[in-house]
């Protein structure tokens, strides 16, 4: 049997978005019809929970489990919110863009199903500013969905209501962080919030709120249509489903492919991305966006699923790989990454804004030939002091991942910068 690609199988070859009628022709909105007719909200949640679907936005939290944290008993707040996190801004990540631009109704159907499962009657789609084409496509798709009674009052005659608003951001990486996003939607600076309470209990304006990633929600209609066992069977390892894997950097064919979850890194890099450009050698890879640990050649056979990448010492993250070649300076690459994180720190926690600026400064000195032998110990200390447990959100701990792993895998390159008093690649 050919490999199943539920998320991308109906993409148009010309790259134009699948509009309502075409989406319906390939079975679109059947899952919503089924759910509204035959399934209780709790049954939808149970299906998603049984499927084992884990969030595709980077953290990998089990989606159905998250939904069960929303209070549903009689005493629960009547108003609940769903927020679609379409603020894709992790450096090296370009997967949600495809789904937003080319299958907008698949996302809307997934969002409506999630909203139904948690009995939310207002949803926001939080889109990053730079995705101009997605903004146009989504605005049209939302209007089509209202006209066809998939959104609005009494959806498909079921008695269930849902309004969905498109919110386009004004920039900043922090908006992709769940609680920063909620502050931004409320018209505030996108600083993170203290957890607990977690958003499913107290989120937007203090109401129960589910925040889910675009790729995550796109899976929901297929799980409702085909069941949780089908979903599990799609994966090659422990995690079910497919994954949109991306590759950027100096490979022959940078791109994006929907493959079974757990496909090996080697298959993705060699068979799909075509291997390295001629005369370049592979040195390392950030497997899931900028805030994941470097992996190296000895890790090429890891399965790209949550457990597989974690076992190798990194994280699946967003599943979009950034490849480091032998003609690119690893210290320069880490400097670029830490510059990003230092700039995007919201300034809320001292270890983050102070520590990351300091880190960037040391790396800039190293790259500029002004490094000192004690700098490497200092970077190691900084990695620990801005790491997990010391900040409100995951920005700083994420920033540390490429740094600490580069110090491990590319230590001789850092030392050479200090010894030679210059960047060997410049």
């Amino acid at each position, binding site marked *: 049997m050919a490999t199943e690609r539920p998320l991308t199988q109906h993409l148009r070859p010309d790259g134009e978005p699948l509009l309502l009628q075409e989406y319906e022709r390939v079975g679109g909105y059947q899952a919503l019809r089924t759910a509204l007719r035959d399934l209780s909200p709790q049954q939808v949640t149970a299906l998603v929970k049984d499927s084992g679907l884990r969030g595709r936005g980077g953290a990998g939290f089990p989606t159905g489990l998250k939904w069960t944290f929303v209070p549903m008993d009689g005493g629960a707040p009547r108003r609940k919110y769903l927020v679609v996190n379409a603020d*894709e*801004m*992790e*450096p*090296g*990540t*370009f997967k*949600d*863009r495809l789904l937003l631009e080319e299958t907008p109704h698949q996302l809307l159907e997934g969002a409506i199903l999630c909203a139904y499962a948690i009995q939310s009657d207002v949803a926001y789609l939080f889109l*990053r*500013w*730079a*995705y*101009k*084409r997605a903004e146009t496509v989504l605005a049209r798709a939302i209007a089509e969905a209202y006209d066809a009674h998939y959104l609005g009052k009494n959806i498909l005659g079921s008695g269930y209501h849902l309004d969905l*608003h498109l*919110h*386009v*951001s*004004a*920039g*900043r*990486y922090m908006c992709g962080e769940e609680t920063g996003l909620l502050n*931004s*939607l*409320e*018209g*505030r*600076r*996108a600083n993170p919030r203290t957890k607990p309470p977690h958003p499913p209990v107290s989120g*937007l*304006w203090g109401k129960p709120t589910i925040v889910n990633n675009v790729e995550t929600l796109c899976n929901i209609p297929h799980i409702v249509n085909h069941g949780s066992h089908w979903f599990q069977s799609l994966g090659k390892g422990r995690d079910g489903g497919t994954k949109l894997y*991306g*590759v*950027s*950097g*100096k490979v022959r064919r*940078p*791109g*994006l492919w929907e493959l079974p979850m757990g496909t090996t890194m080697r298959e993705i890099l060699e068979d799909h991305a075509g291997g390295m450009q001629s005369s370049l050698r592979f040195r390392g890879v*950030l497997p899931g966006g*900028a805030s994941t640990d470097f992996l190296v050649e000895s890790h090429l056979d890891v399965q790209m699923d949550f457990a597989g990448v974690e076992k190798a010492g990194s994280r699946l993250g967003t599943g*979009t790989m*950034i*490849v*480091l*070649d032998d003609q*690119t300076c690893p210290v*320069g*690459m880490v400097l*670029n*990454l830490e*510059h*990003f994180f230092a*700039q*995007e720190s*919201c300034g809320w926690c001292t270890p983050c804004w102070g520590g990351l600026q300091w880190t960037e400064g040391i790396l800039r000195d190293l790259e500029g030939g002004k490094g000192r032998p004690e700098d490497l110990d200092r970077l190691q200390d900084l990695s620990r002091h801005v790491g997990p447990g010391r900040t409100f959100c995951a920005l700083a701990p994420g920033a540390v991942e490429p740094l600490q792993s580069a110090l491990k895998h590319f230590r001789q390159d850092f030392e050479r910068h200090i010894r030679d008093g210059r960047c060997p690649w410049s």
Partner: protein
Amino acid sequence: MLSSEERREIEGEMPRYEQRRAACIEAMKIVQRHRGWVSDEAVRDVAELLQMTPDELDGVATFYNLIFRKPVGRHVILVCDSVSCWIMGYERLRRALSTRLGVELGQTTPDGRFTLLPIVCLGTCDHAPALMIDNDLHRDLTPEQLDGILERYT
């Protein structure tokens, strides 16, 4: 003073949220769409409409990098400096842009035509390096293509 059109557009945003102030980011984007940037006066006017203090609103305005609190050129060039573009030739591209325009990052050309700004990952990493001019994405760039692209923006 907000124009009646700006005011109408901002008021159209308010019912979408539980609280009035939640419309403040969209309100500043509306002002910016009409005027190119958000002045101190505009901050005061929008704050009044949304029942915020000007300082509260300015605190929000200055957080978001795409709310411009200073005048910008007729066209804003946002050149991606994140990791995939960096690997694929960002430095060459930025130097070529600075040479052609005669400005550094953060500056506007003396004729008011272009403002050159850095931007984080544009989410098109398989087509790096990339930049945006106004609402247009330009990808797979080489410095040699810049003249042809820039001349489209007058």
